[in-house]
């Protein structure tokens, strides 16, 4: 019957139009902050110094220069070794936390978070004190130098450990106790059960953790910069090409090379996470570990060892920050905190970092959550909403170095009307929000998906304007997720170097960059002190956050606890 009947198109309400307009505004922001710079970056890699298009000849140059090509190999080498090591440690540690009755779990959980609170360079600095030319434990290296792959791998393993741990803990937590009971009833041995139930169940979590860790190590700049010595990797190559040789085209080529495996890893990770979720059934019963003395003791020893290593790392940095003149005068002093004595930023850079973190957390969480709300709860306009969601996924695949470089090309172009942002705090805030957009967006989306889908239907029938239901219903219900996003942004803004290293100016130096600069100038103790300042701030914020959220939640979320 319906051949000639026109398809009914729903008229858009005023709210629908306002929501779409808001979404387009945030979408344009994302396009300017990520798509256009990346486009400029890739087109730059196809140009010569004069700006003429020369096709792939830069790439041909790159791959035929042995020293440059060697860095790509080095990057892969340290990433593979680092990833395997971290996965092994993190899996056993996570297993101990989720599947055994090991005592002091709370302590091991806290210790495992510590590396998240520090810039990645801190591990490098600490390693210099332990194993450097005057290191206290140098003898353990049996003549090998810490400045090179050994140092990079050790430092990387330290700082990516909590990232892997969190993913694997989640993967191990979602399981069905009934599977283990069934296995036991069928008289399956413990070891067989482990390989038949445990491993397949967290397979996708392990794959996901593997790719996340690989990408983190592969694209990290801080650790190889501090401890890599003459061992070049891709991330330090970009820096050298740009800052050292001013060879922007070649820098762009290296950035694109750096981008490729990151994108592959990102795609595989997305795929693995989707499969992981599909494994949980709603009728699953959570697993309760049973007491097993020999296993619990073994795990306690293992976890203590890992925790000891983590504490050694941060402990040495703390010690170094307080010592007068290592290793000749070991009396304590606060002199190293007198940052203004060194070039590289001084205390000003610390306060700049605080400013950046506050802005990023505040603006970022509002923009990102509101954007996720518009995507998740908007009506109609599916094309726009899907596109937005897709664009919001991109930043996760873009290494900070590539993003920072892309920003130089894009914003430093005098023809760009936005070039006034270059060298300001504004561009640092924008790049940091963009750099960490995806994880925050996903956190927001997950929280929004968990809300009753009919709230919007009811609100529409009650003629509630969307901004009112957003403010009165959505925001209060999602408050825990919003706070999570803001603390995530704050901590990352405090510790990141990779994107901002290309973007800071004399007035907007940052603490984490000051650490690098001080290290460059040989002011290692001061670098350690500055790294510790960052760690204190992040640790303090985390504690404040824990206390604060409890209070805020108790007050605003009364309904939740009754």
């Amino acid at each position: 019957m319906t051949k000639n009947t026109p398809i009914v198109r729903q008229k858009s309400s005023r709210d629908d139009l306002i929501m779409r307009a808001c979404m387009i505004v945030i979408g344009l922001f994302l396009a300017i902050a990520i798509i256009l710079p990346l486009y400029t970056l890739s087109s730059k890699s196809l140009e010569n110094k004069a700006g003429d298009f020369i096709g792939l000849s830069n790439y041909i140059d790159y791959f035929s220069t042995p020293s440059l090509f060697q860095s790509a190999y080095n990057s892969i080498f340290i990433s593979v070794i680092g990833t395997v090591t971290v996965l092994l440690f993190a899996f056993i540690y996570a297993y101990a936390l989720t599947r055994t009755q090991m005592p002091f779990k709370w302590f091991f959980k806290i210790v495992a978070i510590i590396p998240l609170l520090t810039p990645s360079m801190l591990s490098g600095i600490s390693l210099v004190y332990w194993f450097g030319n005057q290191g206290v434990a140098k003898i353990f290296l049996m003549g090998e130098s810490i400045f090179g792959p050994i140092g990079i791998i050790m430092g990387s393993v330290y700082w990516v450990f909590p990232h892997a741990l969190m993913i694997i803990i989640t993967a191990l937590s979602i399981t069905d106790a009934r599977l283990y009971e069934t296995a036991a009833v069928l008289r399956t041995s413990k070891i067989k059960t482990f390989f038949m139930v445990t491993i397949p169940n967290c397979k996708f979590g392990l794959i996901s953790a593997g790719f996340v860790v690989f990408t983190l190590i592969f694209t990290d700049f801080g650790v190889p910069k501090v401890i890599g010595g003459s061992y070049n990797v891709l991330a330090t190559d970009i820096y050298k090409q740009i800052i050292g040789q001013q060879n922007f085209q070649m820098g762009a080529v290296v950035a694109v090379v750096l981008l490729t495996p990151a994108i592959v890893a990102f795609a595989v990770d997305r795929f693995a996470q989707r499969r992981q979720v599909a494994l949980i059934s709603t009728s699953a019963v959570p697993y309760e570990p049973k007491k097993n003395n020999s296993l619990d003791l073994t795990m306690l020893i293992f976890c203590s060892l890992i925790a000891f290593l983590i504490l050694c790392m941060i402990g040495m940095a703390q010690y170094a920050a307080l010592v007068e003149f290592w290793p000749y005068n070991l009396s304590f002093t606060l002199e190293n905190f007198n940052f203004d004595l060194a070039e590289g930023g001084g205390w000003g850079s610390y306060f700049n970092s605080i400013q950046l973190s506050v802005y990023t957390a505040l603006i970022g969480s509002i923009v990102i959550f509101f954007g996720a709300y518009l995507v998740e709860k908007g009506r109609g306009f599916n094309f726009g909403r899907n596109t937005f969601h897709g664009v919001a996924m991109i930043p996760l695949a873009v290494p900070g170095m590539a993003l920072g470089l892309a920003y130089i090309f894009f914003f430093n172009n005098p023809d760009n009307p936005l070039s006034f942002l270059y060298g300001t705090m504004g561009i640092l805030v924008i790049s940091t929000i963009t750099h960490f957009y995806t994880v925050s967006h996903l956190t927001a989306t997950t929280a929004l998906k968990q809300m009753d889908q009919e709230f919007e239907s009811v609100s529409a029938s009650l003629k509630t304007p969307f901004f009112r239901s957003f403010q009165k219903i959505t925001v209060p219900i999602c408050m825990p997720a919003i706070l999570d996003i803001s603390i995530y942004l704050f901590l990352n803004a405090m510790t990141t170097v990779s994107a901002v290293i290309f973007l800071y100016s004399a007035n907007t130096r940052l603490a984490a960059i000051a650490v690098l600069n001080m290290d460059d100038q040989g002011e290692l103790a001061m670098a350690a002190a500055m790294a510790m300042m960052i760690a204190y701030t992040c640790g303090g914020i985390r504690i404040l956050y824990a206390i604060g959220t409890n209070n805020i939640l108790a007050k605003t979320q009364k309904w939740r606890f009754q």
Partner: protein
Amino acid sequence: MHSENVKPYLKIRNITKKFGKFTALNDVSLDIIENEFVCFLGPSGCGKTTLLRAIAGLDIQTYGSISQGGKDISSLPPSERDFGIVFQSYALFPNLTVTRNVAVGLENLGILAPKVQQRVDELLSLVDLMDHKDKYPAQLSGGQQQRVALARAMATSPGLLLLDEPLSALDAKVRSHLRHEIKELQRKFAVTTIMVTHDQEEALTMADRIVVMDNGTIEQVGKPEEIYCTPKTKFVADFVGTMNFLPAIILSNNTVQVSDTVLTCDTENLPVGSSVTIAIRPEDINARNVTNSDSNILQIEVLHIEFLGSFCRAKLGCNDLKGITLRADFSISIVRLLSIKVGSRLNVSLIPKFIRIYVTD
């Protein structure tokens, strides 16, 4: 109730809804009269919720038109339509108290605070929740939450009340209590109401009219008694209540052949020789005072008896029907009077005027 001279309040015309290639609603037309309580009844996936959501504008139809109170609302967004809605999950705002939940819609109309309070109190006493007005939804029982959702939906006195399986999440006892209560409230508010349900008992007890749906089309529209006693299609006969179905062939006007036996019933002028299915409800198989003058007498053997309280459901075998068995409901008094038990042999009659006949397709 439904007569030609009553003007319909809601006019649904040729509604088709497609999700990609799947047709969820196929050319559905329906009139609903002012103040009527209509139930959309059908199995899951029949399109009843899709139709409700099209009426609300939540998932707009692909083709067709809807008008409410004489106004064409076919393409309006939900916020510009006039309805209140209650979902199975209630969708109460968890961070607002009962009072605030009910007040939301009123505040949106720009009504002054004291007036809002007055109306909220009025509604809350109507649903008997004044004692709980400052509580949060999580502190209420399922039935109480349900009533808050109802009060919230009715706060602004909408012209149409939509109920999407409102009782499905409740346990059996609360459910039957609330059935009555919702019906009472609907009468008090005098609001045109559409309720979606898959529970036939709910539909039969609450509705003024039932719309039975299957596969995206309307099978039958009628009063509960009509739906139950004179189901128009085999689907309705099967879905509402219990029914015995027997394959048959028309022998002559008003007789059919079933296996080796001949039964009398109204054959509705169907041509002789056509294949049909005859249907009879278990309670229309009579065992009391069966005499030789009765028509459709069958000699049966009781194969199995299920005790169901005030009556028993018996499975009957019959030589003349070969392998076909019948389900019959015998009241407890008959069971005791005739001492019916497994293995009993007795005569029953299939009352001719209660036999329905459907053309086999």
